[in-house]
């Protein structure tokens, strides 16, 4: 799926994700046909608030890829606007899954200086998102 607007957005410091322009269903990465309403080529990019919650998380203890030495966390974050992202959590002890609470409120931080750029999420100081 075409995610160049997302990647270009990150490079510009923006978290851009997509929804169906016909029915509003969050769809990211964006398919050309909406699985909910069947609309074709109505992908609508928008800039998300960056607020979200942790939907699930894991900790890699095996190094599969040299550029990602274990241990490191990987999370799925659900944005306030609906789309979910595979991402990294910042500011945690990297190797203990018990430090990551599902439902935890998090906020996006864009690292635009990496190539490719990426968005990570940092747990909010306290509380869960409403």
């Amino acid at each position: 799926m075409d995610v160049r607007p997302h990647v270009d957005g990150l490079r510009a410091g923006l978290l851009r994700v997509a929804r169906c322009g016909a029915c509003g269903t969050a769809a990211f990465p964006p398919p050309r046909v909406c699985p909910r309403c069947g609309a074709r080529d109505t992908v609508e990019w928008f800039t998300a608030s960056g607020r979200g919650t942790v939907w699930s998380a894991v900790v890699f203890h095996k190094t599969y890829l040299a550029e990602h030495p274990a241990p490191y966390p990987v999370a799925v974050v659900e944005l306030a606007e609906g789309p979910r992202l595979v991402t990294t959590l910042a500011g945690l002890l990297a190797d203990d899954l018990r430090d990551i609470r599902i439902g935890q409120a998090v906020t996006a931080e864009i690292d635009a200086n990496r190539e490719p750029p990426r968005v990570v999420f940092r747990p909010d100081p306290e509380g869960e998102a409403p």
Partner: protein
Amino acid sequence: MTTPVAVVGVGTTDFGALGRTADDLAGEALRVALDDAGLAGLDVDGLLTHRVDSYEGLAAEHGLDPRWTVALPPEGRMTGPALQLAAAALREGLCHTVVLVYGNDGRTRGATYGAGNSGSTAAGEGYGTTPALTAPHGMTSPGAFSALMLQRHRHLYGTTEEQLGAVATTFRAHAALNPQALRRDPLTLEDYLASRYVVAPLHVFDYCQINDGGVALVLTTLERARDQRRAPVHVLGAAQRARLTGSDLPPDDFWADALTEVGEAVLRSGGRSRGDVDALMVYDNFSPNVLFTLEGLGWCKVGESGEWVAEGRIALGGRLPCNTSGGQLSEGYLQGWGLVVEAVRQLRGECGARQVPGARTVQYACAAPIVSSVLFGREA
């Protein structure tokens, strides 16, 4: 089903690190399966290959010029659909005797399922369609996808590591009764809990054993099956449901809706009810999928599978013996085909110490972005 279809031959090779090619192993399994059925290559007019490198090479080598040839991509989710497709071809009269041939040299090839060499598409290295979104975060491997699902399940339902551990320890105990299984040494819950994490919350024993091996089955119409040397094992139903849209992320329902649909479809097709199922062969590439499959098929309520397996129900002698061969966790990873063969052997009563007494109906099910199930029976 209109024209009944039956399995009349099965063949397996050794499993393990064999240093042989997928096609060589597939070819050996093909010969064993034909011998088992009492058939020759010239009797075959349908060929379905899975994960072999060259269906053409395989057919040429083994003297096959079928009326019907299909080659499927290497993902294990294709095994149920392969059986469904072959059965449909037989019922439709497109051919009368199909060999389904599978070969895997993943162990020799150094498959990692996460860092390359799996011989598979992107879906084999890490689920989903869009590596541009996942690679920058080091998200790779189907196991990590399963781990994300399990951690969500733990959050929603309180599923514990001890409960999940019952899957690996139960299947290991089954493997001890199967001379062909790769992992046969005892595994206690304490061993499991003390073992290393690969992608937490999954321990190393939650991962299947990457393996080399070949498997083949011979399917034919019941009309012909009656003349074969083996008692036919009936294909009572086969169904699939894709969950390919949104497959970049773990499914909210752990594939339960699709599992319910295919489970009901195969029982309806076979004129059976769930209570008739004597054993379940469940796609255990990673042990959480066993939990999700039990819930989706309705063996327990959503969220209660941890407790269900921890209480011994999936062990031999339990209500629903699962993966009596040791499954992919302990017998070896053959992408569902080993489980299918175990279903056939159980229904033939060939399983010796691990035989489910009086098994008459055995189900195969796979929870994956293509969910599938196949129901087998000793009687039509």
